[in-house]
């Protein structure tokens, strides 16, 4: 399972896109967690069989 690399600049850009404008120190404090989290995201994105499709369904009668 490949792990996409993430660096401080990329993390900062992602945080800003999410509306979190942080200091360099604050971004640096999050980076070690982001590196672990990227491995989790890669695991979630491992290829899936087609029958995995029906999860995000919507039922109107649920209100």
């Amino acid at each position, binding site marked *: 399972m490949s792990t996409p690399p*993430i660096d401080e600049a990329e993390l900062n850009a992602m945080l800003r896109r999410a509306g979190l404008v942080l200091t360099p120190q604050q971004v640096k404090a999050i980076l070690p967690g982001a590196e672990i989290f990227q491995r*989790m995201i890669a695991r979630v994105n491992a290829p899936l069989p087609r029958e995995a499709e029906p999860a995000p369904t919507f039922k109107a009668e649920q*209100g």
Partner: protein
Amino acid sequence: MSVLTIAEAARRIAAKQLSPVELAKTQLGRIHRLDPQLNAFLLVTEERALTDAKAAEARQMAGALRGRLDGIPIAHKDIYNTAGIRTTAHSKQLEHNVPTRDAHTVSKWADAGTVMLGKLATHEFAFGGPSFDLPWPPARNPWNRDHFTAGSSSGTGAAVAAGLILGGTGSDTGGSIRGPAALCGIAGIKPTYGLSSRTGILPLAFSLDHAGPMAWTAEDCGLLLQGMAGPDPEDPASVDRPIPDFTAELGRGVKGLRIGVIRHFFEQDHRASDATRAGIDAAMDFYAKEGAEVRDITLSPAADYHAVGYLIMIAEAFALHGPWMREHFMDYGELFRDRVSLAATVSGPDMIQATRRRRLLCREMAAAMENLDIVVSASQPGEAPRIDSVEKWTNMEKPSFTMPFNVTGFPAISICTGFGEGGLPVAMQLAGKPFTEPTLLRAAHAYETAMPWRAKRPAMAG
């Protein structure tokens, strides 16, 4: 008076051998004496407790008790809204928050006659802890105050273990009931998703949050769950189905039960301590000797369940907290704000892939349990670590044993299986098919009543 279980206190109250007012005063005395060393309580509601206890005693004298929870001293995790009583989520964000309405489950326990002693410590918004930069300190483990309680229902775990309360509420998004139950040596059950309402409980992640009880024994958890479970039209996840008698199967033993051990979770995927593994092995020997059929089973790696659950949890938490985080980032503690900020790295397709994979994992678990009644794993990797050794990313580095049952929504209970080398409790986790809590409690109760562990309280509890 030694600390009573709920079952024993209820029996004595019903027999008019125990005054609910005297019981409440005893518990308040223990809180005043012991809690300064534990920080389990954020707020003690002494006046409310005595009012509740006097009302329970009046019903006792009139022969009009409302059931086995009438007169029982409890407290609520401080993410459960309590009308007119401060509810903070252990956060500066809500330091002065006073709800106008009780959480659905708070009302249900009050209607059952419980005596509310106060509000309990939690990790910030049920996620950020143990934190030392919040308005209140973190709860400490009564078995050794230098050690962690686990979280997020940290105050409930500490207060039950120390005998400050007979039971309390917890919430569980990735293990927040079962973790503190394990490290504090008590019992805690995460019911099936939808069995108990979350209305009025400050959410962490909508599709993973569960509300459940924590107490000294599995039987007490069953009694408390009886007072919590039931449909609530205000909670979209709430299930409208008949509520069974959760203690009906207690005492029937385990003969004929089919038990699957997910051994690779705690031997390969995340190797648990020797004492934890030995405790599970001994428990399985006990179950086999008592007539259960025990065999090992294999599921996807624990890391698959952990990744799916963690990604969904972080994304859902940011959906809720994002607006506050953008405006008041520093009003959260470091652990909460830094952990939830990771949601910024989740893309839309990542989230969809997680929900697709979640569906597959639910199907896998259901298929594995088709010919089983219970599956078994560890609750925690070992004894409680020192509280100052728990780091910001510790809960991400190795897969959780509890998250698989948040991902699937299946019920799971943690019970004590003895003590490790450091003298602190170790535990195992039993999980069942959806809505089979009576069977889960039956198996837990059979083990607990055959073992000596429930006779030993932390030394400080007296």
